């Protein structure tokens, strides 16, 4: 893929400096600690790492299941989630420092300078406050503007239609218009992101039939036309390889693979643009895993879906993803194209992860040497703190200056 092509691709999801902290006991658990990435339209973005490194938390933050601590999440250019912690910290730091400066000026009886300083401080604080206010507004009302725009669209469309509509059909058109208007006012931008959960047994309500489960999204959206809903449900069932007869059954009547298909159908009926697949195949049997992977691959091709694929099985991630990010303890340590990452892993953690993949091959397995990773031994970050840098083409690694140099050399030698 050439440089120009990749740049032209539309950025669907942009995550900027996302932090998600949880209160735990007296302290805080930094589940996700300042990660940034972009997902382009139509690609599969893989997120791997060991359990507890924050992959799932990232996925859940993106879909707004959590209120994020700080950072921004932009979906199709609209800010859908924003955290204010860092801004607030910055604000209080500024205020403290500013006051110190002003009091120093006052001690020197330099009232002019003090007044100037105060003015500048007030300005920056006002700007910051405005920013925080905006972030809070976006966090709360990101869907409002979208719904309003949708309503305007529908209104314009029908106004035109009504003008050239014959008298006899006006009533039915009005009815249709009302329905569409209601749906549009319920429209949310976050509906365009849907999630497939890990455990197909736990994520389906055992007391709801498959039809209810799949149609729930549409009903919440405000659609009341039963016939339309049924049609949609059957279409989705057909799409994921189930038959319409299954719609009346309960989840316990299905096998693991079929349940996961129901989960996928439930996500697809909302016509999403981004799907977050949180370990969709980990809980499935080997012979079923391939069915689900193939299904997701087909759907992705037919609908041009964008997928954030979270998993810990590296072979599957490699097979399914275009780009892969490796996470370790709340940070992304390496991000590159799938092939590039597996050919030239740079970060020591990625290497240890790759060396641990078991393969169905006894001769290779008996020779395999596992590389172990100990962050205290592998890096010396006492002086130079690491940051996320581009080492090769589209190949990012979390490292400091010295490491970046060695990585670059390694990449050239290969």
């Amino acid at each position, binding site marked *: 893929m050439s440089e120009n092509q990749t740049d032209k691709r539309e950025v669907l999801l942009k995550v900027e400096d996302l932090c998600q902290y949880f209160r735990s006991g007296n302290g805080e658990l930094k589940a996700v600690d300042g990660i940034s990435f972009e997902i382009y339209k139509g690609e599969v973005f893989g997120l791997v790492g060991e359990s507890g490194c924050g992959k799932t938390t990232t996925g859940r933050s993106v879909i707004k299941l959590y209120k994020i601590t700080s950072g921004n999440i932009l979906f199709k250019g609209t800010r859908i989630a924003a955290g204010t912690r860092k801004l607030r910290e910055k604000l209080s730091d500024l205020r403290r420092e500013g006051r110190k400066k002003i009091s120093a000026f006052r001690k020197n009886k330099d009232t002019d300078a003090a007044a100037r300083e105060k003015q500048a401080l007030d300005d920056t604080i006002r700007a910051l406050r405005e920013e925080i206010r905006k972030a809070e507004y976006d966090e709360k009302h990101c869907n409002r503007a979208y719904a309003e725009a949708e309503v305007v669209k529908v209104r314009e469309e029908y106004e035109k239609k009504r003008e050239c509509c014959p008298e006899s059909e006006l009533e039915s058109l009005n009815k249709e218009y009302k329905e569409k208007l209601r749906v549009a006012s319920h429209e949310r931008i976050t509906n365009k992101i849907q999630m497939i959960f890990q455990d197909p047994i736990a994520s389906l309500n055992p007391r709801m039939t498959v039809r209810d489960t799949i149609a729930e999204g549409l009903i919440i959206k405000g659609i009341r036309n039963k016939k339309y809903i049924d049609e949609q449900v059957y279409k989705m069932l057909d799409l994921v390889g189930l038959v319409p007869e299954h719609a009346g059954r309960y989840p316990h009547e299905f096998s693991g693979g079929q349940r996961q298909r129901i989960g996928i159908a439930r996500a697809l009926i909302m016509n999403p643009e981004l799907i977050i697949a949180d370990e969709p195949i980990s809980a499935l049997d080997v012979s079923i895993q391939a069915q689900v992977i193939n299904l997701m691959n087909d759907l992705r091709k037919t609908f041009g879906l964008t997928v954030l694929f979270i998993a810990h099985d590296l*072979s599957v991630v490699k097979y399914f993803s275009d780009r892969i990010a490796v996470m370790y303890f709340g940070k992304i340590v390496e991000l590159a194209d799938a092939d590039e990452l597996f050919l030239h892993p740079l970060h020591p953690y990625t290497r240890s*992860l790759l060396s641990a993949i078991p393969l169905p091959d006894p001769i*290779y397995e008996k020779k395999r040497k596992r590389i172990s990773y100990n962050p205290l031994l592998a890096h010396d970050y006492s002086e130079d703190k690491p940051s996320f840098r581009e080492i090769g083409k589209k190949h990012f690694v979390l490292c400091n200056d010295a490491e970046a140099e060695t990585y670059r050399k390694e990449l050239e030698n290969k």
Partner: protein
Amino acid sequence: MMNKKLEVKNLRISFRTAGGKVQAVRGINFDLYEGETLAIVGESGSGKSVTTRAIMGISALNAITENGEIFYDGKDLLKFSEEDFQELRGNKIAMIFQDPMSSLNPIVKVGKQLTEAMLLKNRTRRKNSRKDFYSMIKKLRETVKADGSDENGEYAKLISQFVKAEKMGVSAESKYLYARKNAEEAAERLNGLLVTYQKESEPSRRAKCGGIFRYAAKCEDEFLPVFEGEEFKTLLQKLRSPAAPGEADLQRLQALLHEGLAAPVPDFYAIGYLRAFSKAGEAPQEPDKIINTAREFCKTFDADFAKASERGVLYSFRNSTQKKEQAIAHLKDMRKIFEGEWQSDSILSAAKSLAKEIDACIDPVEIRKESAERTFGSCLRSYCTRYFKGARKNKKENARYAKQTAKRERLLSKNKSIDWKVAPPALTDLDALKQSALTAIDALTALYERKTADASRFDPKTETEHIIGYLKARASETAAKVSKTSAKRRAIRLLNEVGIPDAEKRYSQYPFQLSGGQRQRIVIAIALSADPDILICDEPTTALDVTIQAQILELINKVKRERKLSVIFITHDLGVVANIADRIAVMYAGKIVEYGTAEEIFYSPAHPYTWALLSSVPDLESSGRLEAIPGTPPNMIYPPEGDAFAERNKYAMEIDFKREPPMFRITETHYAATWLLHPMAPKVEIPASVTDRIRRIKKEAENE
């Protein structure tokens, strides 16, 4: 050829459920050899866990063992009682479960969970040994009495002397073992200290030495002469002075400890006898002398005791052989009755009387117990009762089936759409039960014929020696006490062995304070705590992620090598299997469909299911569409008639839907159950995705 550790023969297990009888395991056979890893691969519901649970004797309550044998150490585990299993479980066969969080008790500290079994097992072992000892003594006395050669009660006197000597011996031995354990601990700690002596700081040296000296001070015993000696005592005195211990002195201490531990273990029974029956002043105090004198002293008594016991043993043997000879004739008669039509009253009473007769044939003082003889009575009776119960139920089942089929036909003829099936009748296989009963009779007849033929070669002298040896071993087992501190020491050693850092600290932590990998290590340590022969790992890495998984696999491999364990490894991940397995059994729908060494399964698979498994998992080079296996596994309430995999198999032939394929032999070690291997079957190539992968792998292997 390696030793067979475990043999599973034609095992069939079903579960009673509300929906009907689920046939989880349908006749599987495999052997486990010493020091090898056998992997059982299959998807969930294929019966792999059910098989291993049957081996451990922890099948679910609704499980029915319909047929088969599991032989361990010459005994059939399926005929074990719960008490027998408690001896076996953990001690001989240990198990590691899938989820470390649910197999550890969350509110009990790690250390307690580790030592619990050690302490309990030790207590029961000592109790059982004492019980065995006295019951054997009792039997001996009874046989001698029955013999009639002990009219004036001489043998009773001998017996009481023997028991008294053993009691004295055991008390001396338990003291000796305590001292020895302390010496061992001191030596081990000292070895550790001397390795790192130069690098240690002064305070840490002193702290470590303190512990060593505490143990060293407690290792005095009269039968460990070195620790009683002047040199050891003065050295210890010198080292314990406030001045820092020098390396040379420590090395000398180490040498002394090793020398002391190398001293031969004395015969405590003889010493006990000497102490109990010598006159005052006759017994010397010096340890070297006491050992020799004791042996001399009890020689005559030993000979007397053996001779007197011999008479009883011979009498008992002759008696039982005579009974066996009669039993053979009777068994042959009975066989004719059992061969014929079974009538409830006559068969049940025949079984009862036969069982009683065979129970009477058992020689009470024999050491080597024949399971065929001892389990015969209960087996035969259970076959009979099951037969008649089954016959009654079969009638009802057939009636139900006929009724429901008729109803279905009626509805169908009225052109109604029906969404239910008629469950096939769950019939008890009466012929199989009958056959089992006949087999049991035949096996016992053969055994008795062999035994009576060998009767002339019976040597009462060696047999008596065995019996006395058995008595002494039981008595000495009661001496080996495991205290809480020694259990803790062992637990910490085990924690170190499974690679847990800071073992001392972890010992007093709760499971939730540990990471997933460490928890699984603890579970492995608990499994190893009783030195088992066989380790069953039921998906031990499924709940863990890749890096931890690799570590746990390495650990299991290491432990297996060091302790020469036989491992049964259950998993659904073929990648994991490649790393660890020597031989692989692929299971599908309750049957083993392919069986071979790891190389054979991965490089020349023969069964379509194995092909499908291999090609459905993406590896790092996979691209293009994955070859998914269509459909889902069959419902085991209604197992399909022919090959269970036929419905999902694109190579299925007509015969696959009609008849079950037998196991076809490919090489000496490689078997597969598929009609494709039949000489008349059309040639089918292994799918390209599999051959591609094998070629790629081989190429890589050459390159390296």
